[in-house]
């Protein structure tokens, strides 16, 4: 029955699943009673989110002074968290768009949840610049709209303005990409569910999908076009984020290496977060046949490659600082490694460079516990990378008289925690109500690597 696609490749989906099995396995967790574990995780996430909301409300009512900022350090945790979350948000589009263009068929098992993760991470990121304005109800001033002040337009030469456009376009396109991918699966859920409310909701959002091949034909083209558009977009977003720093004249920021360095770091951290989430999800929702060790291994390899680029960037920065013969630049890097925030630098090197080296070994790449631990370590390391870049350059720039140091306040920490609360709350809601794996796409690669009898090649 099954068509031979390639005998040289391993099957992407294990256990010889049929089309109906795929639908059943992925839709079942959405249809059974909400588990206690889900409620426990949800309550904890919402609790942490509420702490974050309290911190933000207090900050807005009182002023940005409740953060540990001062005249020298004008932004710290807020921009660190912003870059961190935007970075996390890069893996989703990379998996859905770039791997799609490269015909990496294994992406089908992970793209849905990675895209969801992207959207939630960009939401978390977007909060920080808005609350840092101090008066978030005026955040719309960033948008060029005809106003009664002239109209006085925004400055399109400012990287912060570019950033506003980049992030909002990225969010919109990611959302559209994710939704387009969801339509056929929503129709599957609509036709399965027995609950009237769910049937109405899934029916409303599945837009009357009936599996017509004329629609599929256009759908495939639209998906390809979106992938082609999203690929340069994902590269442009973190490039523009890096320009927030690179276009300034602060030593350690004012370098041309920043865009590729940031993009590689973003993919690196994003894949680490995808792994952290996926390893939990596949266990809790019994999706081991769909998210196999093959998938985990592939993602580990991407982490190893991008981690290598990040390591190269760290080394290049040091070399260029030395070779530039620029005293300020040289000081910035000596201060980075040996100054008061030196421990964060070594934390970054340890977590991002040393920890990833374990992935050279197949045994460790296929060991779920190891991969999970290392993925968490990388998440921590990448948060520290942004902190190092921002803090070491900002606290000690040109004039020693203006040097200062930054210590996060409890409000800083609560806001950071709150962003994780928001992220996990949204992710848990997604896992409860929408299919975690792209049902339609997995069916399309089901026969991959199987022999004529439907067994494994």
């Amino acid at each position, binding site marked *: 029955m099954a068509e031979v696609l390639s005998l040289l490749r391993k099957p992407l989906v294990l256990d010889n699943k049929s*089309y109906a099995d795929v639908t059943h396995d992925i839709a079942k967790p959405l249809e059974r009673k909400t588990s206690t574990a889900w409620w426990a995780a949800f309550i904890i996430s919402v609790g942490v989110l509420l702490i974050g909301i309290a911190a933000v409300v207090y900050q807005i009512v009182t002023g940005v002074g409740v953060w540990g900022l001062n005249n020298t350090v004008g932004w710290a945790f807020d921009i660190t968290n912003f870059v961190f979350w935007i970075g996390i948000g890069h893996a989703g589009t990379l998996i859905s768009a770039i791997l799609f263009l490269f015909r990496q068929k294994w992406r089908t098992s992970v793209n849905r949840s990675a895209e969801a993760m992207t959207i939630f991470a960009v939401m978390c990121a977007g909060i920080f610049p808005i609350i840092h304005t101090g008066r978030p109800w005026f955040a719309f001033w960033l948008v060029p709209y005809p106003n009664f002040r002239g109209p006085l337009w925004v*400055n399109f030469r400012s990287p912060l303005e570019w950033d506003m456009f980049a992030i909002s*376009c990225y969010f919109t396109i990611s959302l559209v990409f994710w939704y387009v991918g969801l*339509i056929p699966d929503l129709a599957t859920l609509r*036709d399965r569910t027995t609950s009237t409310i769910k049937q109405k909701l899934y029916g409303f*959002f599945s837009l*009357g*999908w*009936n599996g017509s091949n004329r629609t599929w034909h256009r759908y495939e083209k639209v998906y390809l076009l979106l992938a082609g558009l999203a690929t340069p977009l994902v590269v442009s977003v973190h490039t523009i984020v890096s320009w927030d720093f690179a276009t300034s004249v602060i030593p350690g920021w004012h370098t041309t290496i920043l865009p590729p360095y940031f993009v590689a770091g973003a993919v690196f951290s994003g894949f680490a977060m995808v792994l952290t989430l996926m390893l939990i999800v596949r266990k809790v929702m019994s999706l081991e046949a769909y998210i196999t060790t093959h998938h985990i291994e592939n993602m580990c390899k991407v982490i190893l490659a991008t981690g290598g680029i990040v390591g190269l960037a760290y080394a290049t920065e040091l070399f260029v600082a030395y070779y530039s013969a620029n005293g300020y630049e040289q000081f910035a890097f000596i201060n980075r490694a040996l100054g008061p925030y030196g421990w964060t630098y070594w934390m970054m090197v340890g977590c991002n460079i040393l920890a990833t080296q374990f992935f050279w070994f197949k045994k460790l790449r296929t060991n779920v516990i190891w991969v999970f631990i290392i993925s968490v370590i990388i998440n921590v390391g990448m948060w520290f990378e942004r902190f190092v870049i921002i803090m070491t350059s900002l606290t000690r720039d040109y004039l020693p008289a203006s040097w200062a140091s930054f210590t996060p306040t409890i409000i800083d920490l609560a806001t950071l925690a709150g962003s994780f609360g928001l992220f996990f709350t949204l992710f848990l809601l997604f896992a409860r109500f929408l299919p975690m794996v792209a049902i339609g796409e997995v069916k399309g690669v089901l026969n991959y690597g199987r022999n004529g009898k439907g067994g494994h090649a």
Partner: protein
Amino acid sequence: MSRRLLVSVFGSEHDIVAATKTARTRGYDIVDVYTPFAVHGLDIAQGIKPTRIAAVCLALGLTGAIAKLGFQIWTSAWDWPVNVGGKPLISLPAFVPVTFEVTVLFAGVGTVLAFLLRSKLLPGKKPKRLYEGVTNDKFVLVLAQTDAAFDVHTVREMFKPFHLLKMEEQVEAD
């Protein structure tokens, strides 16, 4: 006017492609094929013309690019010129990032809207001709019974090698 339809159900992507190809070469009028996922090669088997949506995408992208670049030049150099750090009023390199983002936004969102309108997919719309199992594991080929010479039995024989699961006649009122 109503038309009589012949609905044939198959169980695998391989069979639906072969059955569709056979039906088309024998000159049957294929209304549409319904599948749970995008089956590769089925559009060729069914004889669907290549979609022109890529042209829509290009046109929208260009519109976005020109509109946004024009807007930036207009606001920065004409409507309220502000000297920022001695940079030229029309500082083209600095206008590139936002122009690019808006190009992608127009092309991406516009293409999806064009697709939804063209395929008549609208929020809350009731699906037309929804066959059982088609969003799960069934592949459905719908033929129109165009003339008196249409013989259901011949079609059943024709589809037998492709593991035909079920076949039924329907009358569709327009």
